[in-house]
């Protein structure tokens, strides 16, 4: 068994909707609801799901950018939910994030040098000439050079901005990086470059990634294991190869049938799902997918199915299995 880097048990993140004079909590948005996840050192863990299913929230909770409502979150042996602020700050350098929108993730009033240098300065790793050298080294690592150092973010293209974002995340030699849809705002050719950059960096620095995306072809290319998320829950997770070979959960089947194939002669059966993504405020009872599920049984609306290991390493939360 490989070493675990992140281990979350019964992780919950509820966003309260407050109303009234005394800000009493009326309802909760259950963005992450009872999730168990375990990410191994050195792997790329893919997380897929539709928009609004809570995958971004999960990514942020896993590096404690937003504190979880309940559950335990163990990162490199220490429980992030139990430690105090200064200890948490010491752990921050080990976990970093690359954001979806490269233009809003870079401060428009800071030069590239200051953006990349900020983490180094805060953690007092380098100063003066050494700092400059380190920044240059980071820029070179992500394929930029010295002439870019004193420019502002608006002077760069989307792909270049994303590279700057990656350089900032790498500055502190992290062990674990959450990649929150890092390629979805880039065009296809640049996407490929950035994905390859991620792969190279992983090899070079022994990084662990959590790759959040809704793009299944990207997941297939980059990740070792995949979790499929639906309405704040993980419905299935398995090694990438197994998942693309055999889908167990009806939602995963529908999701994967939607991948476009670049060959018009191949006729495939699309599974068209009826209805909308359920509201995270009052999710359906039992299995959250049952109102849209083509194979729903009476039992599905009564109790929630647990994640079970169907094959080796292949987990699914469905009563069909």
């Amino acid at each position, binding site marked *: 068994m490989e070493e675990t880097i992140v281990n979350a048990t019964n992780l919950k993140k509820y966003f309260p909707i407050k109303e009234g004079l005394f800000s009493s909590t009326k309802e909760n948005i259950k963005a992450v609801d009872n999730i168990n996840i375990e990410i191994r050192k050195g792997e790329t863990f893919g997380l897929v799901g539709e928009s609004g299913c809570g995958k971004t929230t999960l990514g*942020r909770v896993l*590096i404690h*950018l937003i504190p979880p409502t309940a559950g335990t979150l163990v990162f490199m042996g220490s429980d992030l939910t139990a430690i105090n602020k200064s200890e948490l*700050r010491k752990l*921050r*350098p080990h*976990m*970093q*994030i690359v*954001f*979806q*929108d490269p233009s*809003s*993730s*870079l*401060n*428009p*009033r*800071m*030069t590239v040098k200051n953006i990349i240098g*900020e*983490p180094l300065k*805060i*953690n007092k790793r380098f100063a003066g000439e050494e700092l400059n050298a380190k920044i240059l080294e980071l820029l070179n690592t992500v394929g930029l050079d010295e002439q870019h150092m*004193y*420019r*502002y973010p*608006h*002077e760069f293209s989307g792909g270049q901005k994303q590279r700057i*974002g990656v350089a*900032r995340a790498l*500055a*502190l030699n992290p062990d674990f990086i959450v990649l929150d849809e890092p390629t979805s705002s880039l065009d296809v050719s640049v996407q490929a470059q950035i994905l390859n950059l991620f792969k190279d960096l992983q090899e070079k620095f022994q990084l662990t990634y959590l790759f959040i995306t809704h793009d299944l072809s990207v997941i297939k290319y980059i990740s070792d294991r995949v979790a499929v998320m639906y309405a704040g829950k993980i419905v299935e997770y398995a090694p990438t190869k197994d998942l693309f070979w055999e889908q167990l959960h009806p939602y995963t089947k529908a999701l994967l049938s939607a991948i476009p194939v670049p060959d018009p002669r191949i006729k495939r059966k699309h599974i068209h799902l009826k209805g909308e993504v359920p509201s995270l405020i009052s999710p359906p009872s039992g299995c959250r997918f049952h109102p849209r599920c083509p194979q729903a049984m009476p039992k599905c609306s009564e109790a929630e199915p647990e994640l079970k290991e169907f094959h080796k390493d292949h987990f699914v939360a469905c009563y069909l299995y």
Partner: protein
Amino acid sequence: MRWLIHEYDSEVDKIRPHVKLVDDFFKKHESKIKDLRFMAYLFRKSLLSMIGLILILILILVALFAPFIASQHPAYVRVSTDQGTTVIEERWDINFSQTLLPPSAQHLFGTDDYGRDIFSMVIYGSQTSFRICIIVVAISTFIGIILGGIAGYFGGIIDETLMRITDVFLAIPYLILAMAVAAALGRSIDHIMEAMIIVWWPTYARLMRGQVIAIREQQFVEAARSVGASNSRILFRHIFPNSFAPLLVEITLDLGAVLLVAAGLSFLGLGASPGTAEWGLMISSGRVHMFHAWWYVTFPGLAIVLVVLGFNLLGDGLRDVTDPKLRR
């Protein structure tokens, strides 16, 4: 423009090391300079904002060099009210045989009912006006930025408390407050400035709060938090620098507004004490002579119009320049 030439003789560096320093400076700040140039270019393109800028520059120069511009030493003209004894001495300079003279070569804007030179008074009045504008706006901006910034950034109960306090201050009518202050503490420019600060800062606090709330949700703030930045660092390095643009526009426009309100208060007899070179006060004392001495009210009135217009045009120009949608 040497920094544009990439390869140059390194011998030059040895002989004149300061040349390299200057080059390095330009290389480092190339982007900033380009940015400023672009802003200046946008600004120059608009005629109205250039007029505004020129009007304000003239005001600044006039206020700075008032003693050199004024045609005669302003007898009885007091810049500040705290001059006490000197005022009595200067009263002897007043020439009562020269009251209400029309504009002439000797008195460009004519004289007032005490025989004082209106040109000199208008010139010296710019100092008073400028002092009021700058101090009121600077202090209210400072209070507004700090309170609004804290309210917006921390949110929750802190936000709620600060904003309700702001609401209380917003509910105070400035005229009544200025009257109350003048009645309680005596008639003085300093007192109306205090009264104006009290009613002015809530606008800035609200504006700043809105800005901070918008910027707080940006991903670069989250990114800063993820590398372990402290709250104060996030506030001062990331949020504040990005929320100043709309504030700057508001400040410029408010400089004119403050001037108008201050002149109005002086006109009503709440502000400057009689004898001070203050435009509003001059109009107030000139209004009884309006029909036989038009110059008495006209020139200070024109001064107010030009300066307020200048600030408004400048503010509009700045808004256009700082609007990111217009830029790229």
